[in-house]
């Protein structure tokens, strides 16, 4: 009961940041140079047409009134129409978001699967070859920018070796996309029982996912190693050992569960970074996600689309960190009781 109220309290705490994000995206797009009404009207429009369009867009009102209109539209799920395509921004984002999420999650899971065991092994055997390997990977991951690793991987595995499929989107043109359920091609294909498409979508995902995971590997492995080292030298681990508890139980139940707290916090941040890094990786691999959409929108000064993208990313940040905090609250009984 107490836990539930704490989780509820944490969700309530997420409301102000969301409101702040909405306000900032609104103000930012209004502060951008250029008059959207002029854009919409086109080159040949006269003063009257522009004024008419301005009134249509609600731009003749004062800023606070515009903001209220904006809020009302948001509540109705209306993010405005894209300038370049003319379609509603929400529809476009929603069709592209699953592609980005699928890639990001794949990259994150891959890096967790490598980084966490690596960090734990490095911490339990400091100074060994695992520890050194961990250090090398961390340094490489931090120092290599994602667009470089992406191009490098394409060069080796597609161009030289020919192992990877061509880096052009989520699925080779030979296949039809699976019926949409979750929007994740791999999951949808598996649900439909279409294993050929399933493997094809995985093959397409391997290189970009590796690129992202190399980037995410460094902070996760480093944090896991540090947190495990701290936990293993903790007094409660010593107590567990003194009472005869064995190696695996001490490492995984006593040390790792405590070490998981800072690692989880890091995961939240890494996920947010990945969403950002996605923008470049999607461009390199022609991935039809919201990142490449945002770049296109930015180049075309498509303000509704940019605004929608920023809002969407910010909401994802908030939701992910909220999720992590709720998980932390469930693991750590002390959270929320200090002071």
């Amino acid at each position, binding site marked *: 009961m107490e836990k539930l109220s704490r989780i509820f309290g944490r969700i309530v705490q997420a409301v102000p940041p969301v409101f702040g994000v909405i306000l900032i995206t609104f103000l930012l797009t209004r502060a951008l140079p250029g008059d959207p009404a002029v854009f919409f009207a086109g080159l040949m429009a006269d003063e009257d047409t522009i004024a008419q369009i301005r009134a249509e867009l609600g731009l003749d009102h004062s800023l606070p009134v515009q903001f209220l209109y904006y809020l009302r539209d948001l509540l109705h799920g209306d993010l405005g129409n894209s300038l370049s395509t003319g379609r509603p921004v929400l529809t476009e984002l929603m069709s592209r978001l699953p592609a980005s999420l699928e890639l990001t999650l794949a990259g994150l899971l891959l890096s967790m699967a490598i980084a966490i065991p690596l960090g734990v092994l490095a911490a339990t055997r400091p100074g060994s070859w695992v520890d050194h390997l961990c250090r090398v990977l961390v340094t490489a991951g931090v120092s290599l920018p994602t667009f470089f690793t992406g191009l490098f991987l394409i060069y080796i595995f597609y161009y030289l070796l020919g192992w990877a499929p061509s880096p052009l989107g989520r699925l080779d043109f030979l296949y039809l996309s699976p019926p949409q359920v979750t929007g994740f091609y791999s999951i949808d294909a598996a649900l439909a029982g279409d294993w050929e498409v399933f493997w094809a979508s995985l093959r397409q995902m391997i290189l970009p996912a590796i690129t992202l995971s190399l980037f995410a590997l460094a902070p996760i492995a480093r944090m896991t190693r540090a947190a495990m080292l701290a936990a293993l030298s*903790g*007094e*409660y681990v*010593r*107590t*567990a*050992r*003194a*009472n*005869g*508890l*064995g190696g695996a*139980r001490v490492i995984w*139940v*006593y040390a790792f*569960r*405590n070490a998981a*707290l800072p690692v989880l916090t890091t995961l939240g941040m890494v996920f947010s970074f990945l969403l950002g890094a996605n923008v470049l990786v999607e461009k390199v691999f022609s991935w039809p996600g919201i990142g490449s959409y945002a770049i296109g929108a930015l180049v075309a000064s498509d303000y509704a689309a940019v605004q929608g993208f920023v809002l969407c990313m910010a909401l994802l940040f908030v939701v992910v960190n909220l999720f992590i905090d709720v998980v932390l609250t469930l*693991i*750590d*009984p*002390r959270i929320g*009781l200090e002071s």
Partner: protein
Amino acid sequence: MTPLLKVENLSIAFRTRNGEVTALHDVSFEVGAGEVVGVVGESGSGKSVSAYTTIGLLDQAGRVAGGSVSYDGKPLLGQQRPLRGREISMIFQNPRAALNPIMTVGQQLSDVLKRHALAGRTDAKSKAIDLLRQVQINDPEERYNAYPFELSGGMCQRVMIALALACSPRLLIADEPTTGLDVTTQKTTMDLMRELTRARGMSVVLITHDLGMAAEYCDRIVVMEKGRVVESAPVRQLFTAPRHPYTQKLIAASPGPDSRLEDLTRGQLEAPAKITPTPQNRPGPDRLLEVVNLVKEFPRRGTGFFGRKPAPFRAVDGISFELRRGESLGLVGESGCGKSTTSSIIARLQDATSGSVIFDGHDILHHPAQRFAKMPQRGQVQMVFQDSHDSLDPRWSAADVIAQPLRRIMGMKDAGELSRRTAMLAEMVGLPGELLSRYPHQLSGGQKARVNIARAIATDPLLLILDEPTSALDVSVQAVVLQLLDRLRRELGMSYIFVSHDLNVVRLLCERTIVMNRGKIVEEGSAEQVLHAPRDPYTQKLVAAIPHFEPEKLRVS
């Protein structure tokens, strides 16, 4: 009969950046079946290292350089793993940190029981609850689901004892089990441990720096100094006829209820400083400080959004007392009794809720604590804090620390004048001049205490508030620091408020003592009277809990 534990010529070396350092030299001692052996010594004596080697939890940098340890007649070193918990177990100091913070105490107990196949999935909980009951934890069914942070320090230590005794080992190693606990909690914890281990016929190795506790709870005592065993004897013999000079020094330095200040160093008083400051003639009322009806409340955490606020917690509950010029007053009580809050209000580091503190004729509570640093009275009321290491800035040399109040409060600017005055202060507190350029980590505990005292007396204060200034020091260092403080007070004509949990120490330094409990003064009187003829039931309990080692009071065993 072979002893249960036999340590023979054990040497331990540690790898450090400056090559190998030998921490133990040829240490030998034995623990018989059912025997309680105390290992006593000051910090760095190697008492913990020998214990950790025995149970096989020595730091990775340490290595056995020679000698052997045998348990029950069989070699033990390298073989401890299967014996831990089942044959040998250990309890540690700082019990709250020594328990897993995110697991309930019940789960931790069940884990140990299951590990040693003493309980299965079905009966682990009932057996764990039974263990909690054995260590006299109230409502064990409810406490089974408690996390360590929800329990008091004393309760956590009982859980630790339950963990250690879960599998009925034959040897228990207790490493400073009650350091940091209040005296009364210390007594109940130690009594409980004695009762449980005796009932099981267990052997105990009790590692402690507290001679009184070793005397009270051990059959035999091993005294260690700098990695060597200097003396090993039955309790009675050790305290009545100590043979080794170090043992004699240690016994003399431990303040007992009848010892005098000069006894602590066996009459060898520290050479007084060459500079004898002339006591200033300080006119003013004889009553230096008057505390009237002082109250300090702390808000409690609210319940929900619109729920009624709970009544605030009264840390200091309307206390009044006086301090004469040149007098030394002890403020005694257990943790949470409000003694530290009171002292920091008088030092004007905290604001009071109500009441007044009249210092040298002026009510200093009129000025908020934040502004007091700029007031002329700041230099008149100074403080020496509890932790002499943490209260020094790690990036400041000793000279910087001492010169700071001269600069900020006395407004001294001239570099020559500053360094002359700093050197003089160092001399007054017996800090060798060549140490002035050192940083805190390069100084010993006693030297850091001296730096703190020099800093506090730099502004020539009328009132010095000492908050447990010696509680982290080894007894032999404490003895010297206490003598220094006593000499400085007489020479400089200061008044002291000495905050401490240790009545024996307070009696050495203070003429009058106030005993506090739950924010109120429960007893006031001369230090002698409070210690020897306490009137209030709480004071009586407090005095009875102090472990003693006077030969005449030792139990015959």
